[in-house]
């Protein structure tokens, strides 16, 4: 089954921007979802209250984090907060959640930065807790990291069977977990280095992207066709000289211009070229949920107008 295209914008809420107007503008331009990052360094608004406010000022826009770091908050609280927004927006939320990766955040908060395996295992448990909170009736959970006793969490989400769960990742462990558990899966660079490095850029190559889809498929089994695949295009530029642009930025990523153009983290070209590329990538990778940044969502809107819902 081929999913229809939909589009999101990842915005931080920066000084000088009017949050309410920005949310309404996204909605008016045809974007499906407003996503916020969840970091403590170099970002501004806290995602949970800010998405609640963005949703209160709009009528159809979906809201979520891209993504909540599981280690910042107990999953029962995250589940309750998201269900509250879901209730107060008549079902317009998406729960983006990740294992956590940005070392500087952990240092600032004084939280232990456990090995990737431990963080992913904790995310796995958190997903069971969150799903338990959202399901009908009381539940219990005996995990290594979380214990829940006879808890009937309230409110339940409006969306059934649950708020769509969005998990992003770049490595096999997270993507298999996402394949098993998530409704929307973000195909990301691999951030095992704890920061955005040349290693992360190389991990977004065409060949690596195909590998990542394979890991998702392994985790998903029969439910693969129900999963919506997402890419957040960190490198997204409207230009009539895509090769020139790629040549200019390639050294910064330790890559060739051809590798940049083919990268699963880059979308470069004219509006018609971008449309063709997104259609081709839907064919080859199955990616239909496209996310751009707050700096270029206005220029990118013609792509949304052409492809959204098709």
């Amino acid at each position, binding site marked *: 089954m081929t999913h229809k295209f939909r589009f999101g914008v990842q915005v931080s*809420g920066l000084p000088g921007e009017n949050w309410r107007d920005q949310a309404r503008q996204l909605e008016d331009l045809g974007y499906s979802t407003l996503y916020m990052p969840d970091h*403590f360094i170099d970002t501004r608004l806290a995602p949970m*209250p800010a998405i609640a406010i963005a949703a209160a*000022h709009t009528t159809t826009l979906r809201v979520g984090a891209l993504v909540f770091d599981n280690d910042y908050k107990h999953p029962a609280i995250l589940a309750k907060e998201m269900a*509250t927004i879901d209730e107060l927006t*008549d079902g317009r939320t998406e729960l983006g959640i990740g294992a956590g990766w940005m070392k500087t955040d952990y240092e600032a908060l004084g939280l232990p930065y456990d090995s990737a395996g431990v963080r992913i295992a904790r995310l796995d448990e958190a997903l069971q807790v969150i799903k338990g909170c959202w399901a009908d009736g009381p539940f219990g959970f005996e995990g290594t990291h979380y214990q829940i006793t*006879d*808890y009937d969490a309230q409110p339940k989400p409006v969306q059934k069977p649950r708020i769509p769960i969005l998990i992003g990742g770049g490595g096999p462990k997270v993507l298999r977990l996402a394949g098993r558990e998530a409704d929307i899966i973000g195909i990301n660079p691999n951030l095992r280095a704890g920061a955005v490095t040349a290693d992360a850029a190389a991990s977004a190559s065409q060949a690596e992207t195909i590998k990542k889809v394979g890991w998702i498929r392994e985790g998903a089994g029969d439910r693969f066709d129900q999963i919506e695949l997402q890419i957040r295009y960190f490198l997204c530029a409207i230009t009539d000289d895509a090769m020139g642009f790629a040549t200019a930025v390639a050294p910064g990523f330790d890559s060739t211009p051809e590798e940049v153009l083919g990268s699963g983290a880059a979308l470069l070209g004219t509006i018609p070229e971008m449309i063709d590329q997104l259609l081709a990538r839907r064919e080859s990778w199955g990616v239909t949920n496209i996310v751009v940044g707050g700096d270029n969502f206005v220029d990118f809107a013609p792509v949304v107008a052409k492809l959204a819902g098709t």
Partner: protein
Amino acid sequence: MHDRKFRFGVIVPKVGSATEFTEIARQAEALGYTTLYVPDHFVDHPLAPIPALAAAAAVTTTLRVGPLVLGNDYKHPVVLAREAATIDLLSDGRLELGIGAGWMTADYEKAGMVLDRPGVRIARLAEAIAILKGLFADGPFSFEGEHYQVTELDGQPKPVQRPHPPFVIGGGGPKVLALAAREAQIVGINANLRSGDGNSSDAASSLTSARTDEKLQWLRDAAGSHFDDLEIQTLVGFVHFTDDRAGMADAMAASFGVPPADALLAPVTLVGNESQIVELLETRRERWHMSYTVVPHESMAQLAPIVARLSGT
């Protein structure tokens, strides 16, 4: 120095729909209530305060919003600081930040959190408040505590209210009230909840007038001359309009285990006809300086004439 003028808030633990929540917030604003509060528990209190307060602020223009109160143990103070400041920023400075040490045993049991003894929870709350204030202040902040460590973090965003949104701290025991005297701008005088159960006889029996006198004395002793700057708040759980006040007083007295006169004065109830309720509020303000009364949102329309009559006086 606080002017001790009356003001009123409503508390909303749950709603049936998105529309209902918006209506409650707008009605509270229209009826002259200054503040909408949302409690913070895992059990019997469906709304999660942070997103609900954000939504309430978004659909109103002057209404203040606040958690009453956040359980400090449920969230890391660095996470909370950023969320609180975001609400304050996006509401143009309408947040009242209620925070407590955590007390409801059921919350901790259900969510698998460790319920430390009160002294530890209160010490942790004191550290959390220092972190919140540090992150709300300008520039980077570090903190080396027993429970939390923060390294060179410049909290963003900064709240609009400077130096920080008013803190609401409530309690019924000497330690928490001493902390409130030191750190809060608004102090809630509550039942003593050391039992971990708000409906326990221990909590109820701490509501006599003599025990309330004692709580005010603890607060006064801890605050010194600063006592006059504090706004004193009460959270009313039971509102009942009746012309048979004596009959209700007897019934409440039996259920609380306190004398009937004390049951009426207990700052968690409002019982009587309109003029009797006005008189109760005036008595509580005279005797205990309580000028800020929070009521269940179900009673807000019924109490509106009293709110209109007393607010700002």
